[in-house]
């Protein structure tokens, strides 16, 4: 089984689907000849040609709109926003056109919206955002955010095969930092299913994306101190795996909800509300939320480190939770 980085997981899944299904095609800025700003589609144009690896004008709303139109007539477009921050320029097409299409018209709308997101790469305010919670509010859209190469591959394939618009948040910081064995062939991760990345008995961290790795590192440290931490990677943010949340809360009774997105209005608030309402009697401590500060993503390293959720902050938060 080959070792793949997170970004190779995405590429491998995309290529697998494009070979399997001629109706799958990619469109976005610089995805063809250049191979994508992050090289996710490097070499694709040589294998699949310029029509299926479609270099578009610089126009996010049109790119998304064209994706919607192509999906209407029976294709399965994968739209790439070069940075997820730019999705605001196509927001109306995503939310109002794609999000309502099946409900209002009966047309299935199999379009995947790839969103390279996340901070820690010194991108500043407009190349670092985690805008997933703007979309987890919208019925009609699905939202996924893988944290590992295996899930990256399995979720991109599942997203392409889904007959609904799926926003696929891929974390830029993880692209080349995370590696694991991933099968060459078919890998499917069901949308809506969480994954227990680490078992534990004292505390639970409900998280996704880059925060999963912070939680795993913090859990490893706490293990040395005799505190056993369970890490639940949500993977899908809408719909999300309520049963998996209930299982882990039942087991530990102490929960931290963590993500790299801003705290206020982040999807973690939804998870916390669900836990408070459905698992109240299982809890031994208040549900804790940990996220990045409510502040635009700063550029300078020292400021970015200060603003972002980090392993140290997760560690400290969990320790406090254990002592409650």
């Amino acid at each position, binding site marked *: 089984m080959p070792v793949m980085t997170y970004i190779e997981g995405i590429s491998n899944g995309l290529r697998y689907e494009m070979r399997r299904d001629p109706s799958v*095609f990619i469109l976005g800025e610089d995805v063809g000849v250049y191979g994508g700003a992050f090289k996710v589609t490097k070499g694709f144009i040589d294998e699949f040609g310029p*029509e*299926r690896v479609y270099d*578009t*004008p610089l*126009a996010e*709303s*049109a*790119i*998304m*709109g*064209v*994706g*919607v*139109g*192509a*999906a*209407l*007539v*029976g*294709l399965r*477009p994968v739209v790439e926003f070069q940075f997820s921050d730019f999705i605001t320029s196509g927001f*109306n*097409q995503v939310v*109002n*056109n794609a999000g*309502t299409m*099946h*409900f*209002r*018209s*009966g*047309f*299935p*709308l*199999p379009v995947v919206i790839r969103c390279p997101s996340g901070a820690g790469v010194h991108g500043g305010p407009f190349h670092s955002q985690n805008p997933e919670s703007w979309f987890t509010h919208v*019925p*009609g859209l*699905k939202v996924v955010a893988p944290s590992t190469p295996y899930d990256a591959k399995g979720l991109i394939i599942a997203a392409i095969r889904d*007959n*609904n618009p799926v926003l696929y948040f891929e974390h830029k910081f993880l692209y080349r930092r995370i590696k694991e064995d991933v099968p060459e062939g078919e890998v499917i991760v069901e949308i809506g299913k969480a994954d227990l990345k680490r078992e534990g008995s004292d505390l639970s961290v409900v998280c996704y994306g880059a925060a999963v790795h912070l939680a795993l590192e913090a859990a490893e440290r706490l293990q040395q101190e005799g505190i056993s931490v369970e890490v639940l990677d949500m993977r899908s943010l809408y719909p999300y795996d309520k049963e998996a949340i209930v299982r882990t809360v039942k087991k530990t009774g102490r929960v931290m909800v963590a993500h790299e997105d801003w705290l206020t209005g982040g999807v973690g608030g939804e998870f916390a509300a669900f836990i408070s309402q459905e698992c109240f009697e299982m809890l031994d401590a208040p549900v804790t939320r940990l996220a990045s500060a409510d502040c635009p993503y700063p550029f300078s390293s020292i400021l970015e480190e200060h603003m972002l959720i980090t392993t140290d902050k997760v560690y400290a938060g969990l320790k406090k939770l254990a002592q409650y």
Partner: protein
Amino acid sequence: MAKAKTGATANGVNGAVAHHENLPAGVFQQNHLKKLDALLPELDIPNRKYGDLTKDDYIELYRLLYMTREVEARLTRLYRQGKIVGGVYLSKGTEAIAVASGYSLNRDTDWLFPMHRDLGAHMSFGQRPMKLYAQYMGRAAGPTRGRDGNTHMSDKSRRIVGMISHLGSMIPVAVGAAIGCRMQGKKVVSLTFIGDGGASIGDFHEGLNFAAVAHAPFVLIIENNQYAYSTPIVAQYGAAKIIDRAIGYGIPGEVVDGNNIYAVYETVKKAVDRARNGGGPTMIEAVTMRMRGHSEHDDHFYVPKDLLEKWAERDPILRAQRFLEKSGHLKEKARLKLEEDTIAFIEAEIEEASASPMPDTGDLVSSVYA
């Protein structure tokens, strides 16, 4: 298009000036006069052959035009009776554009993206009035089963995609449908509409530029009805004509008398044929005048009365009637019979829609996802 002998009256100009009291004196008035002068067409449409239309086509287009006017008149009646859900947005005076555009397409293969005032396009593309009435009444028999707004009528089985309310948003979507069909090896055209107001929105530019670069089999009809809600064209765009933008996109742009249904057909059909044969996109500006308010709740007070009178003489139905009489395609007696039959047909369609059931609430939430 011929220039009018007189421009707008002081009344008309003043009516518009109220919008722009902060403009330097005279500038707005001059612009407004110039634009109005340029837009008013001749009284009668030329008595000549239009494109590939046969005698039967001339008559059928007239029937569809007349039917659109009468379908809408009854919508207003039902609205006043409280039988319509939501507002009513009429195309009175501008029907020829939608009817002729829908008629220019291949209704078995092409894709149609109508706007809220394009009821006629639905019908000339094959839709039954019953379906339209059912939609307006929020019934299960409406093409969206009561889900989408009353003018937003997708019909999957007919490749009609209803608009979202954000004007201009369907332009890139229609371009995507055109490109998608071409990728599938089909010789299919997609067509959508925009107004003089919607042409100011970013998606208009992004979509047209995308279509031009992609050489997409796509046709955009700009229905210039001179008012976006209450905003006159002089407050909407700075150029003499919207179609001047075609040069910037590097695609063909044509202006047509929007109140001449046969000329609209001829112009649109040429663009549709060109798109189908690999000739790329076209934008067409069809000039007309909205003869009602934005919606039936709007009394239209901001439009100069004498302007409406001038356009009323150029009503597309009256002009088509005079043309049919003069050309001999349809004489008055036969026309009256056709009109009578059309009314009877519409009344039966209303009856069927009125008797049809409300949608079931059971699958409302489960129909969000495919």
